[in-house]
């Protein structure tokens, strides 16, 4: 059942229509049990990203010795809840340190994706005409390009680096939401309430910010959370391919070193935790975005499908 606006109690700040819509939709979402699970998991990862390094029992690159020799591939024990890796570093601390790069990747990548995607999508949709055609042809070209190989080409161009990889992801992944946002703006642009405001003399900026954006907001939140998910996913894949700097201990790098060590199956405590953390984070962002759009927007399943 879709209800897209609420009348909230009237206290100053909440009266501003943007805040009201977002808070209202969020409130409504938390009534749905499944969404609470995803939302709290995301908050947990966020906190991990902020406080992880402080909580870590050992520094992430400290080699541990036990009576003289390196504690190599120790299975999980009380001292090391997730055991140690092949060069004697505590897996649990590295996991906690690894949260921060993932959160940065997600937020930075997500913002870039929604930023570029919305500006291109909304300008193309609202302005129309030749501007629309050129922007859309450009999007089609970026769409036609196979994502990971092209990212690797760009990485080999700009050099292997953590920030470079995020910028590259951001520069490629906006294509899905630009196309969907444009089609939504094209629809809204012709609706009578927009024509009425235009006829009353509303300027173009007023119409975009006061009418188009609030009606596109649910879709934008969906794409923001999908953007976070995809950034983490692609960044982990690039890290696994060894295309990002191995020194920053992100979860992707941990999985890569576990895989390269060849002892992947035996030392499951070293491979599985980072792998599962990545997977669940990406999944949580997808499911959160999907249910937000379901409740606040027009439950447009195709948008989710095309976001990739």
């Amino acid at each position, binding site marked *: 059942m879709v209800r897209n606006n609420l009348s909230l109690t009237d206290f100053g700040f909440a009266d501003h229509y943007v805040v009201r819509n977002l808070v209202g939709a969020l409130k409504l979402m938390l009534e749905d049990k499944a969404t609470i699970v995803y939302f709290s998991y995301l908050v947990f990862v966020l906190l991990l990203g902020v406080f992880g390094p402080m909580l870590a029992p050992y520094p992430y690159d400290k080699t541990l010795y036990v009576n003289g020799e390196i504690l190599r591939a120790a299975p999980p024990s009380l001292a090391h809840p997730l055991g140690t890796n092949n060069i004697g570093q505590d897996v649990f601390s590295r996991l906690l340190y690894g949260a921060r790069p993932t959160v940065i990747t997600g937020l930075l990548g997500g913002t870039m994706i929604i930023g570029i995607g919305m500006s291109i999508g909304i300008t193309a949709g609202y302005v129309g005409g030749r501007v629309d055609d050129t922007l859309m042809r450009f999007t089609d070209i970026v769409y036609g390009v196979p994502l990971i190989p092209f990212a690797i080409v760009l990485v080999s161009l700009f050099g292997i680096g953590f920030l470079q990889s995020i910028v590259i992801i951001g520069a490629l992944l906006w294509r899905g939401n630009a196309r969907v946002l444009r089609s939504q703006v094209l629809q809204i642009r012709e609706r009578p309430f927009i024509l009425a405001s235009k006829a009353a003399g509303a300027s173009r900026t007023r119409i975009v910010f006061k009418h188009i954006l609030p009606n596109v907001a649910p879709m934008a939140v969906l794409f923001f959370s999908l953007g976070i998910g995809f950034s983490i996913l692609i960044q982990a894949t690039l890290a696994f391919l060894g295309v990002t700097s191995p020194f920053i201990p992100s979860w992707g790098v941990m999985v890569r070193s576990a895989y390269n060590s060849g002892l992947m199956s035996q030392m499951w405590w070293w491979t599985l935790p980072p792998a599962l953390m990545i997977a669940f984070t990406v*999944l949580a962002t997808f499911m959160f975005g999907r249910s937000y759009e379901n409740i606040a927007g027009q439950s447009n399943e195709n948008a989710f499908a095309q976001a*990739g």
Partner: protein
Amino acid sequence: MSRIRYVLSRSVQTVALLFLILTFLFFFFRMLPGSYLDILAFEGASEASVEALREKWGLNEPLYVQYYRYVINFVTGDVGMSLQYRVPVWEFVRMKIFNSFILVGPAITCSYILGIAVGGYTGSQRGSKSEKYGLIPFIMTGSFPSFITAIIAIIVFAGWLNIVPTSGMFGFDNMYTGDEFAWWRAYFSADFAIHYALPFLTVVARYTYLPALVMRTNVVEVMGQDFFFYHRMTGLPGGKRLRRLINHAILPVVTLYPISMTRAIGGLIVIEMVFNWPGIGYTLVQAVFARDFPVVQFVFFLVAAFVVVSNFVVDILYGYIDPRVSIDSS
């Protein structure tokens, strides 16, 4: 416009697009800073031999001459030499493309068949539990990064249960890999099958969510349409109505097939690396690192060409199935 004119106009567009992509790729890779020869020089090859190689492949001539010769060769089937292995690109790449296609083709087709079945079923159970939660497992596996699904699969099935080898395409003792047997017989051996199982399942798990989701949305939408209610009122039994439903709902899913194929080729790199599968994906990555741009250029062209051609085929198919597209109202 009649159907013939529709097919004609679409094929003209396709050829023009292919040519455009070829040109774009040629110039794009030429502009990339640093070439294979710089790497050679960097690894201490003598200045003379680097110069000789440059001469041999005509890299000193102005760009448009190179482009002109490249296009002529391309059209006559010679797609240039791999700088790394000094072997014609086509020879070097042929088998690898076949291996990748063996994995992606059946996997994506199977994920589409599965997706259509599941999507169709959940869509038709309107309002029930299965419609709401039926697709959750597919969306889960769909959102896991493919290398993680691969690794988890290897750890569980190969590591712990040990029913499947961890990687590679053939076992050492596979009797067909000897050169006296026809090359394709190896692909039908049981040994190949057990190597093939895990990568196949990983691709299917990763790419089934798209057709399932789109099929379900279409089924729900078609069932809400006026003509579907009219079919019911004219007394069509369930079976015939189901056929009409599938005819309508399947159209948009078919148009997504080429897009899924290209995404799969992109995602293949990681899967081939994890499973040590000698496909084109991982070769492409190494070629990029080595700046072996004839190979990279050719593979990129193949991928883009695949998209354009399959879109063309889907358009014709769509025009054939849906009269509204190809027959204009008289």
